[in-house]
């Protein structure tokens, strides 16, 4: 009798996760062959609008800057104005949710109605190899105008790259980051009020939900890694890192509107977080820290000539690995979930085989529910690992000279 509500809750959760993911996957607009890789890559990359359902989008503001344009460098508009690829504004069009620019300068500026945007498989030379690449064209008055790639600063790892324009828009990822920041401010001002009100008393309300996190970060992350003497200084940074990454991860796992953005699976976002870790570690580095990097004491000089370059490289590799770890973990999770959902369309042969679709929905849905639960664990784990490693790098930078690290960690418990 007692376990019945639990089963009911679990079933409800399972069915709702299944349903939401079906809704999530049901976005394929273009008829014809189902392209699993393209769909997955499209879903994990950033977008200039929120795609809710087949034709339903939530537009987001676009701030576009084209340095090469002589008259109109800046274009401000809402992404809804592009009418989902049926309108070009100042040579910008929207293609699969991303703002692209028409490469041909003879295309008229201002608002222009176009017939649509279509992709074509073309053979292109990529890194010295012939490769099939999808190139997009805007159709206007019977002619085809080639589109540039979307503008991203991550070097084109997830599509895109440096183009003739810069996209400073509030994209899906930026919106979700702002939402996460807003949630953090709202929740933690209430927690702060709780600490003021209940000083010296037991925590209450939302404060009691978050207190275990604070205690955990302080006792398991900051104290053993940074040391009792310095840990308090870095607590705000470590806590901010932890909660920001955690909230972005959890928002990314939500398959419906305010979430669904792959924020911490974006290389630019994790790059900025890693830069913060790098700067804070190194500006707090003391004499011993720099001595151990540039001229490690107690070893022969010829070994030093090998060790010093390794240590200097290590300065950069540490935050670099933080960046890649978070990005790859979260992106991999999203790719796995989207691939499992893609099974529905692969088995269903994109709507032609109903039975295959049902089998795909059952198999893919069950595995997706399972993966979602694993990703819930990963969301916490990666937030913990990022803050833990940052704390240990800071700890190495502020550690006093002849201090036994293990001894200190032992005392903290």
């Amino acid at each position: 009798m007692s376990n019945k509500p639990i089963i009911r809750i679990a079933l409800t959760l399972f069915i709702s996760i299944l349903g939401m993911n079906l809704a999530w996957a049901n976005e394929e607009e273009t008829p014809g062959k189902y392209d699993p890789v393209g769909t997955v890559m499209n879903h994990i990359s950033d977008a200039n609008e929120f795609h809710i359902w087949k034709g339903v989008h939530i537009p987001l503001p676009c701030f576009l800057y084209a340095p090469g344009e002589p008259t109109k460098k800046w274009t401000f508009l809402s992404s809804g104005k592009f009418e989902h690829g049926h309108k070009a504004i100042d040579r910008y069009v929207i293609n699969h949710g991303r703002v692209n620019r028409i490469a041909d300068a003879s295309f008229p500026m201002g608002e222009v109605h176009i017939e649509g945007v279509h992709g074509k498989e073309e053979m292109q030379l990529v890194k010295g190899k012939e490769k099939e690449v999808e190139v997009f064209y805007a159709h206007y008055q019977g002619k085809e105008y080639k589109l540039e790639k979307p503008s991203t600063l991550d070097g084109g790892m997830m599509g895109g790259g440096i183009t003739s324009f810069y996209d400073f828009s509030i994209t899906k990822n930026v919106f979700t980051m702002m939402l996460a920041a807003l949630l953090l401010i709202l929740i933690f001002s209430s927690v702060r009020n709780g600490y003021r009100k209940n000083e010296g008393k037991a925590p209450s309300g939302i404060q009691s939900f978050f207190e275990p996190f604070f205690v955990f970060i302080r006792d398991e992350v900051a104290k053993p890694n940074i040391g009792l003497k310095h840990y308090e200084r870095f607590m705000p940074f470590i806590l901010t890192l932890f909660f920001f990454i955690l909230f972005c991860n959890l928002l990314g796992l939500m398959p419906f509107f305010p979430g669904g953005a792959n924020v911490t699976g974006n290389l630019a976002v994790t790059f900025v977080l890693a830069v913060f870790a790098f700067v804070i570690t190194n500006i707090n580095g003391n004499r011993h820290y720099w001595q151990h990097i540039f001229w490690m004491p107690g070893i022969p000089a010829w070994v030093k000539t090998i060790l010093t370059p390794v240590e200097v490289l290590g300065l950069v590799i540490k935050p670099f690995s933080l960046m890649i770890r978070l990005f790859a973990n979260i992106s991999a999770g999203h790719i796995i979930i989207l691939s499992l959902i893609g099974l529905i369309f692969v088995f269903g042969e994109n709507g032609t085989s109903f039975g295959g679709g049902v089998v795909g929905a059952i198999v893919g849905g069950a595995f997706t529910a399972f993966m979602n639960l694993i990703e819930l664990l990963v969301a916490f784990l990666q937030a913990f690992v990022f803050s833990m490693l940052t704390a240990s790098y800071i700890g190495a930078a502020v550690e006093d000279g002849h201090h036994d690290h293990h001894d200190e960690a032992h005392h903290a418990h």
Partner: protein
Amino acid sequence: MGAIGAGIAALGAGIGVGLIGSKAMDAIARQPEAVNDIRANMILTAALVEGAALFAIVVGLLAG
């Protein structure tokens, strides 16, 4: 080629994480009172090993 490389990397990381888990279990069996310290260090080391595999996966993605 990228897929083969990613597969080999996953193999290495699997062995690594498996070793970490097995040693951590041994350690917990020896000293059950240290379970919290062991768990925290186990997760951290597993994350570091997994990081190497993820590097390989990113390289695999880039190599296509």
